[in-house]
């Protein structure tokens, strides 16, 4: 039973930039939460504060009710897996895993038992005698994971652990990590800038930008119902159109959509898969390019003022460049002042 509470944590670097700005998050027991954001969004800094490698300038971090805000890393019940795996190259795999246990004065036979068990868990049984430099990138990252797991930390911290691996390996490893995490029911905080990783692994996703939370939700909700224009633009592909609402209609160039909100500026968001097209002579949009992906097609469209939109279509062969098009959005959301103010029912 381990829960993590992050309460209004702030990190100000010398020079006055707030890397993390009054951030709060509760992670439930056994939950895997992804911190997702572009580089510089403060997600890594936040993770490093939970691990004890950075001191918050304000706020509190508690694990199972115990305040760890000012404890050094060696006295926190957290285990961190680093992006560059950070294995100790002068030790073999066994010694890498045993180091932490030895510091805890565990008897040698018990250490051996535990190390072998965790190697088995990450699929590296029998690799104890290898030097870490003789392992492949994926194996090194597995050893790094095992090095954290063997100490049975209350909170597992993963700092973009797959960033240096190739696409194929990354997909396999994230499934493995997810399986292990669910088997051990270990509370996990995972930092990534890859939305695929977040969407496929997380119980909940925290989308961060500029040191602040943009949205905290289940992956499907973050995708279907982004609460801010930033999240809308960051997760998946999204047509974001700046425009004006006048008398219940959103207007941009010759394109209008009914939008039952008060008059004023607004940002309209439409997923490519929610934007249907119909051939038309009416002014609206024209086809710029058609790309056929086999399973589906993508149509690039230009509004009269040059604004570029994308639409996903089932039969790309129905369209050709230069053709006039009528836009038929099925589901839209609208944002004003960085807040969602309207969402059509799905």
């Amino acid at each position: 039973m381990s829960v993590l509470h992050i309460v209004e944590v702030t990190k100000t670097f010398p020079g006055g930039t707030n890397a993390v700005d009054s951030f709060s998050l509760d992670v439930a027991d056994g939950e895997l939460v992804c911190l997702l954001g572009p580089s510089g969004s403060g997600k890594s800094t936040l993770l490093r504060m939970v691990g004890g490698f950075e001191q918050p300038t304000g706020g509190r971090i508690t694990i199972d009710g115990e305040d760890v805000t000012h404890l050094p890393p060696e006295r926190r019940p957290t285990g961190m897996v680093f992006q560059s795996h950070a294995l100790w190259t002068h030790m073999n795999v066994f010694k890498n895993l045993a180091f932490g246990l030895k510091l805890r004065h565990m008897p040698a036979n018990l250490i051996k038992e535990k190390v072998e068990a965790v190697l088995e868990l990450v699929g590296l049984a029998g690799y104890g005698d290898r030097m870490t430099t003789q392992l492949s990138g994926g194996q090194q990252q597995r050893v790094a994971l095992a090095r954290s797991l063997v100490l049975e930390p209350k909170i597992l911290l993963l700092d973009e652990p797959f960033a240096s691996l190739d696409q194929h390996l990354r997909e396999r490893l994230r499934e493995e990590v997810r399986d292990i995490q669910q088997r051990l029911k270990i509370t996990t905080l995972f930092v990534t800038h890859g939305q695929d990783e977040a969407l496929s692994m997380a119980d909940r996703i925290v989308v961060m930008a500029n040191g602040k939370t943009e949205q905290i939700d289940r992956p499907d909700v973050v995708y279907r119902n982004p609460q801010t224009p930033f999240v809308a633009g960051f997760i998946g592909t999204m047509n974001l159109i700046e425009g004006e609402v006048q008398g219940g209609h959103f207007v941009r160039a010759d394109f209008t959509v009914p939008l039952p909100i008060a008059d004023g500026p607004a940002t309209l968001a439409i997923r490519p898969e929610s934007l249907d097209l119909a051939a038309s002579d009416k002014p609206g949009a024209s086809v710029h390019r058609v790309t056929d992906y086999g399973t589906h097609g993508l149509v690039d469209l230009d509004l009269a003022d040059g604004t570029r939109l994308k639409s996903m279509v089932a039969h790309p062969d129905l369209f050709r460049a230069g053709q006039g098009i009528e836009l038929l959005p099925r589901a839209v959301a609208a944002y004003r002042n960085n807040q969602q103010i309207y969402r059509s029912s799905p």
Partner: protein
Amino acid sequence: MTTLALVRPRTDWLGIVFAALLTIAIVGPLLVVGTWAFTEVWRYPNVIPQQFGFRFWGQTLGRPDVWNALMLSLQLTTVVTLLSAAICLPAAYAFARMSFPGRNILFFSFLAGHAFPKFGLLVAIAAIFLQLDLIGTFWGVVLIQLVGTLMFMIWIPVAAFQAVDRRMEEAARDVGASPLRVFWSITLPQAGPTIAAAVLLSFVGTFYETEGAWLIGAPGIRTMPVLMISYINNQMVIQFGAVLSVVLWVPSFIALMFARRVIGGGAFARGFGG
């Protein structure tokens, strides 16, 4: 020259010319010395010695002045190297890992020792030692040789410490190691080989240090190189000097073997500003 260097000829004539000239100029003289060391009789103008043998080895190594000089040199070198390591390695760690006011200025100030013509500086130091009565004493020589090792023993270990991945140290903190334990179990072993090479090179460099020992140490302190100077100037038996040269060259040979990794990769030359 460049013509040949850029347009690769089928046979590397340029390389052969360089190799031949360098072999004659660099290996040749040393071979002559080596031959003398194992010669008992070699009268001009014979091209090959009349008689080879080990007679002069026994005679040279049996001389008390040789033994005294050897023992003194080893003592001096050991003391200087240990002192240098004891004061320089912690300083190198501080320069590499800690931030404190004046860090950069202090770091580069060690270049000052290399900004002066060396012997001029030694004379200036000797003038101070004259007033302090350190001339002709063991510790006077220790001090002057210690200064010679400073830059080497700080700059190379600093690079070694900086090359240790901080994430490795953080990972060790993460599994429960105290900062001191991290240094002992992670940082030091990682930086170890390079630091060992620096210590070894400074040991050998100190062993051969001649000018400071001669200027400060004479007449009381006679190290091996100082003894060698007097053999060259005053000793009629050529073989004594030759045998001593061969014996003296042994530490250098060990250094040659160990230093390859430090000198390779151009890191060493960069340390000299290349």
